């Protein structure tokens, strides 16, 4: 077993370069707090609430009977307990995958149509982003408590764990390449160590979020899709089994964190 020599215990004492780094961090944090006062995600929440109640699809039904894990139509607190196993579909699902299920079963969309347009693009809004914003906001302030007891939840965790470390592609990247150490950043974007609850609890719970660089709310499905884009992988399938497995893996370390979604990010 190879041991890495510890970064000096004196890490607690900050040298010049370290202080400069912390100043950069502080300034970026201050800038973000100033922005947070008017989060455009509020507008997506409002639209999401309308969409939840709007009769849509071949069955002209609303999503108000959708079961997000706490019973049909219970939205408050549901996001705090996702992802989880659902007996009606006999699989582990996250928020977006569950919304897709309800679009099919309640509103009558075909599975193909129910997954169309998950991510908005110039000139084309996505209903999913609004719905996710609304549902997530209804868990704001609650502690994430995604279950890890059902055998399929445990299996999803183990698969997510394997995927997290899976190195591939021309850059040899895995999730761990960026998310395996504390206190690192890519360019000026801080990176959480996703297997450290200290980081995971603060960051995982800020999704979905309005992303300034994208000009829209982006969800966890988009975050994973975007990560794989950077990792020189092809397009991750929307609500694929891999995406949910990774979310279950991350949620385990983020459990206990306070949900601050929808958040605001670059």
């Amino acid at each position, binding site marked *: 077993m190879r041991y890495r020599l510890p970064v000096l215990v004196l890490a607690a004492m900050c040298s010049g370069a370290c202080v400069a780094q912390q100043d950069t961090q502080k300034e970026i944090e201050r800038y973000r707090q100033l922005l947070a*006062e*008017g989060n*455009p995600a*509020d*507008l*997506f929440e*409002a*639209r999401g609430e309308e969409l939840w109640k709007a009769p849509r699809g071949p069955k002209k039904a609303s999503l108000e009977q959708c079961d997000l894990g706490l019973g049909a139509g219970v939205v408050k607190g549901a996001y705090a307990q996702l992802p989880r196993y659902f007996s009606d579909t006999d699989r582990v699902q996250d928020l977006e995958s569950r919304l897709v299920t309800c679009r099919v079963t309640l509103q009558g969309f075909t599975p193909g149509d129910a997954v169309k347009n998950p991510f908005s693009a*110039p*000139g084309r*809004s996505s209903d999913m982003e609004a719905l996710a914003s609304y549902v997530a906001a209804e868990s704001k302030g609650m502690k994430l408590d995604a279950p890890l007891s059902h055998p399929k939840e445990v299996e999803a965790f183990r698969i997510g764990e394997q995927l997290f470390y899976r190195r591939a592609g021309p850059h040899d990247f895995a999730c761990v390449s960026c998310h395996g150490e504390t206190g690192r950043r890519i360019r000026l974007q801080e990176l959480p160590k996703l297997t450290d609850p200290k980081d995971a609890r603060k960051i995982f719970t800020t999704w979905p979020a309005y992303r*300034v660089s994208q*000009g*829209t709310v982006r969800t966890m499905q988009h975050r994973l899709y975007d990560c794989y884009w950077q990792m020189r992988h092809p397009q991750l399938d929307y609500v694929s089994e891999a995406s949910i497995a990774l979310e279950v893996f991350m949620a385990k370390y983020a459990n206990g964190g306070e949900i601050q979604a929808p958040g605001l990010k670059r």
Partner: protein
Amino acid sequence: MADPMRIRASMAGDKVEVRVLMSHEMETGLRKDANGALVPAHFIQNVTVTHAGKTVLSAQWGTSISKNPFVHFRFKGGKPGEKVTISWVDNKGERRTDEAVIISG
């Protein structure tokens, strides 16, 4: 025609708090596309917000306002049920007007 603005107008104490997200590319005219050609300037130049016939906000924008501008402001004198109207005109003469009903806080 651009995407509709997302608007929310609600009471915050005795003021109306308005949040608007406009959908607009806001090109500065300095950016180059993938082929190296300059993308022509295309940005909102004027924003007017009215309530009960009065202008409550008037703005003249330039190229430093970023894509999909978000505006958040408060004004006095509005009540729930009344309308707030927001209009913009860009440098190409394109325009957009949307309105929202004030809801209680």
